[in-house]
């Protein structure tokens, strides 16, 4: 099992760092899945995480100048590692002006992802900073826990309002209630609602637009049959939504959410070479 990769472009390095920073704000531990073409940061929904799950997919070729992978075996040419993204973040933080950053799977006292950055220096010899990030290799028999999530049969799919606005609304609502209801319909309307004994607050968004999933989308009812004004809603833990919005360092080119009525909130952020999906289960 071998892995070795190299980034030499500063822009790619910065972009990669922002993605890792985003992931590190969403979870303390996640699985890094490496294949020949992609990297995935995966968090599988568990009681411990409150059922939240995450799938972040990067196309390797857009970041790395060199990328060599030898997986567990020829027919399973992948590597699954459990890692603390915060360590990754820390290691990348001071390497932002590096001439090159190499990442390699190594074994020190335990398996590590070793990140070595060649930094500019005052002399002819570069400074080299090396970080050994401890990881756990996940055995093949557990890989099924970290499969790509199925797109749920959603009831409504809608583009999100500008993230900044949404974030500030959610931030204020968090002071009033622990739970927030996000509802939307196929008319491009979305409401964020909180309700307590003393107060209820609703923020209305209009003309957001609905992504055209088309025939291959897995919608429970095609657009023509669903009443466009009918709201699908999900009541979620407001902290989880806030955490997701807060962590965003990459401004997505597309941000949307799919709602499975009273079941799941599925948030999708797309960028040219990165996609991030976040699933928040609904609570009663």
């Amino acid at each position, binding site marked *: 099992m*071998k892995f070795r990769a190299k980034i030499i472009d500063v822009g790619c390095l910065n972009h990669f760092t922002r993605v890792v920073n985003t992931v590190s704000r969403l979870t303390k531990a996640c699985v890094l899945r490496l294949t020949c073409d992609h990297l995935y940061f995966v968090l599988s929904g568990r009681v411990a995480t409150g059922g939240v799950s995450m799938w972040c997919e990067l196309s390797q070729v857009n970041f790395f100048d060199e990328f060599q992978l030898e997986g567990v075996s020829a027919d399973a040419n992948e590597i699954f590692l459990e890692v603390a993204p915060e360590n990754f973040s820390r290691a990348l933080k001071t390497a932002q002006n590096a001439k090159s950053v190499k990442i390699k799977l190594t*074994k*020190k006292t*335990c398996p590590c992802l070793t990140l070595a950055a060649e930094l500019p220096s005052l002399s*002819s010899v570069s400074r080299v900073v090396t*970080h*050994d990030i401890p990881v756990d290799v996940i055995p093949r028999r557990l890989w099924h826990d970290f499969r790509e999530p199925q797109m749920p049969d959603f009831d409504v799919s809608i583009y999100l309002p500008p993230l900044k606005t949404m974030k500030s609304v959610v931030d204020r609502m968090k002071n009033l209630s622990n739970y927030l209801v996000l509802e939307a319909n196929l008319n491009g309307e979305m409401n964020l609602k909180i309700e307590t004994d003393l107060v209820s607050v609703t923020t209305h968004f209009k003309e957001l637009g609905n992504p055209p999933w088309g025939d291959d989308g897995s919608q429970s009812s095609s657009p023509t049959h669903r009443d466009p004004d009918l709201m699908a809603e999900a009541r979620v833990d407001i902290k989880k939504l806030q955490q997701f919005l807060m962590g965003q360092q990459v401004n997505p080119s597309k941000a949307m959410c799919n709602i499975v009525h009273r079941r799941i909130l599925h948030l999708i952020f797309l960028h040219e070479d990165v996609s991030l999906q976040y699933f928040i289960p609904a609570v009663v």
Partner: protein
Amino acid sequence: MDCVATGGNVKVLAKAIHSLSRIGEELYLEPVEDGLALRSVNSSRSAFACFLLSPLFFQRFQTPSDQSFRCKMPIKSVQAVFKSLASLDRSVEKCRIQLNSEKSRLTITLHCKHGLLKTHNLSFQDCESLQAVFDKDSCANVLQAQPRLMVDTVLHFPPSLEEVNLSVSSDRVWLRNHVEDDADSSRAMMTELCLSAEEFDHFAVSTQTSITFCLKELRGLLVFAESSGLPISMYFDEPGSPVILNVTDSVLEGNFVLATLSEESHPKNHVNSNTKCPDTEQPPDDFMSDDMDSFLIAMETSELPGPSHVPTSPPRLSNRKDNRKHSFSEEEQEEEALTEGPPNKKFCSLFFGSVLPTPSHMPNQTMQSQEVLASDSEDENEPQTS
């Protein structure tokens, strides 16, 4: 005692005090023949710092002729006088430090613009002279660098990092985070920075060595050096001997003396470093061999439900704070032993000079004639009684 500092030197004085505050809770103030000595020491006596401001630093420098005055006071109260560095710059023209012996107060007066006077009367405690024994000139290794280099280096380590390991060879310097030798540490993230000797203004290494000391206490000096632009010199020897960091210019000298871990333990990162050293010389792609495949096979065939670690050395108790031994020598030679069993490591405390400087004593920072006494020869098995 009556000292007056003017202009930019007021800010320098303030910065010196702020950097001393990173070491200990109390500021020891003592006018000596060579100038005004400001000192501080940490509670475990493993870090000591001293700024000696020469008479030329001051516009006026008047000290009691018998040189019998010395005092200490909580450093926070002195810091409060010099609170905002920016406003010191803008508005303070002069700073006067006077001893008011009738009222037993140290009066610090800031003469500001527009005739404004801010007077602070600080109470102090009499104390004995605080002097750590160290001799820079007898150290085998000397490095000197611009503060920017040190600051940039330290940036790679988290602000919370306590201890750092410095290793030198004939042409390289490695800085690593030091990790405690216990079960948890095998999972800690290790960071190592390698610098070439060429980056240093002066690089004199006569013995390849590796020392571990507390980085936190040093940060105060780094801030001072960076703002003053003075190069930092580092003097050190073998593990156990203190490391001395020094900034000097024509009117002041700052010395930060830190104890280093003695040789007893063999930190894991030593093992890494020895195998890593050749690697940094070789073509960069050639990392050390990783036996991932056999590790994986071993793991797959095990009965454990999930990933298992390579077994590490048995966990050892190490309460760092207790492991630092104390050795006071103010009034009495008091020695405290460790609380827990045979220690697996200890920071050798600094040896402090004896009490009252006799008239024949040169009241200097470094007692040239005295050898550096770095390791204590106390009985480690003595149970702690305090």
